[in-house]
């Protein structure tokens, strides 16, 4: 039996004034009554919006829902939402299903294990210390985004993959429009082509002369140059623009919650739990999508074959049925089971790398600067309201 549900004509995207960490309030009120509602997509597609923790996890864990790019409609407004989606390019496994996806993922899982990532701790500590030293040398204030949050994960993903870090400004410039749904399509295509061309050259060079890094290892498998380029593209893009936002937005959130920051400073061992809570509370990758491959009865509704479900991970991670007092940042809570890295077979491949980086970087930053504070009023911090990855464009801080 199906019951009647609300029908939204657009995805709510505006975060509440003065609460840049909270999801749009409309999502919360919708979730508590109708965790699965109808949604009209920007291109006119009549799909669904899932906001409850249980239903978001159920959809992404269900193989009757597809991640294939050519079946997608985009819920976020912008040029990309209106474009016809081609099938995923070779190697772009996050937009593939089943055996096709598994073939790529299985070649990569061994390279991102908990143990292998923890072995990087010392190197991350070294890189973090170098950036903190540089901040101290140049004064008592800095924009934390370019001085700290962006370069540490960028350097680490470049080293891991075997991509020259000297070219990171080129990557950053080209990754930026790809995470901004409202960027003109031509700009996105130019960025894709520039990055793709660069990485293809790199793959060809590594095939001629394999190096001791992930791409160097992958050229010895049966993957083609095109597939390797796609994989490099995904891993580089994911490494550049995710942890960086967690570091900057996470610092912003801690500075705006001095009681929680004090708890973390008193008990540095609680950092692991605090990171899970920041992941839950901030849910920077806020919206996902899946398409029904057949009619699926779920959440008291029937999602018909071909209909797309927009998945609000941000609303799911504030679901009071899963997390008591969900809108409170509480570094001591058990945030396990959050959907910040997704769920299902596409759950973030690099999550253990992200955890190691966040642990080292937050610990280093708070340890080095006991008087760390915002250098401008909180409402002047520029938010990434135009991005599908939440964060800040700048975070001026002071420590003197």
């Amino acid at each position, binding site marked *: 039996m199906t019951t009647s549900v609300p029908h939204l004509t657009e995805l709510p995207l505006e975060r509440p004034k003065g609460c840049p960490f909270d999801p749009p309030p409309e999502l919360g009120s919708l979730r508590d009554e109708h965790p699965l509602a109808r949604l009209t997509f920007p291109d006119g597609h009549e799909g669904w919006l899932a906001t409850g923790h249980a239903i978001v996890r159920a959809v992404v864990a269900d193989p009757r829902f597809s991640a294939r790019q050519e079946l997608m409609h985009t819920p976020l407004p912008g040029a990309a939402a209106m474009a016809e989606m081609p099938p995923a390019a070779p190697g772009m496994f996050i937009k593939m299903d089943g055996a096709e996806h598994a073939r790529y993922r299985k070649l990569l*899982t*061994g390279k991102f294990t908990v143990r292998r990532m923890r072995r990087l701790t010392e190197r991350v500590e070294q890189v973090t210390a170098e950036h903190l030293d540089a901040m101290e040398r140049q004064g008592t204030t800095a924009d934390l985004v370019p001085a700290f949050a962006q370069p540490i994960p960028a350097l680490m993903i470049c080293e891991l993959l075997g991509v020259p870090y000297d070219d990171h400004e080129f990557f950053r410039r080209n990754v930026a429009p790809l995470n901004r749904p409202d960027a003109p399509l031509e700009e996105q295509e130019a960025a894709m082509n520039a990055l793709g061309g660069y990485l293809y050259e790199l793959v060809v060079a590594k095939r001629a002369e394999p190096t001791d890094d992930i791409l160097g290892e992958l050229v010895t498998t049966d993957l083609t140059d095109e597939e390797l380029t796609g994989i490099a593209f995904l891993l580089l893009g994911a490494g550049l623009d995710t942890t960086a936002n967690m570091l900057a937005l996470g610092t912003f959130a801690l500075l705006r919650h001095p009681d929680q920051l004090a708890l973390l400073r008193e008990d540095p061992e609680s950092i692991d739990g605090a990171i899970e809570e920041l992941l839950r509370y901030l849910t920077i990758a806020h919206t996902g999508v899946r398409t029904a491959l057949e009619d699926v009865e779920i959440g008291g509704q029937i999602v018909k074959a071909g209909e797309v479900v927009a998945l609000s991970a941000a609303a799911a991670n504030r679901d009071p049925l899963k997390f008591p007092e969900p809108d409170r940042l509480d570094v001591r809570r058990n945030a396990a089971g959050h959907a910040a890295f997704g769920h299902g077979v596409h759950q973030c491949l690099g999550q253990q790398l992200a955890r190691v980086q966040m642990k080292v970087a937050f610990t280093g930053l708070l340890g080095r600067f006991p008087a760390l504070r915002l250098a401008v009023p909180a409402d002047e911090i520029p938010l990434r309201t135009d991005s599908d990855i939440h964060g800040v464009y700048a975070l001026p801080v002071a420590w003197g």
Partner: protein
Amino acid sequence: MKIEVDRERCVGAGMCVLTAPEVFGQDEEDGRVRLLDPEPAGIGDAAQSCPAAAITAAD
């Protein structure tokens, strides 16, 4: 309790290793789950948190 893992379903996310490191490990080569203790006292919420539903627990 008795634990079974399905290495074919496993996607190597590492959630089980974080949750119950004495019970679950990851293969050094392919990153997929290795069961270190098939009859542990408990595994916390490792089964529910597995993204690929590759862990089965029976009392």
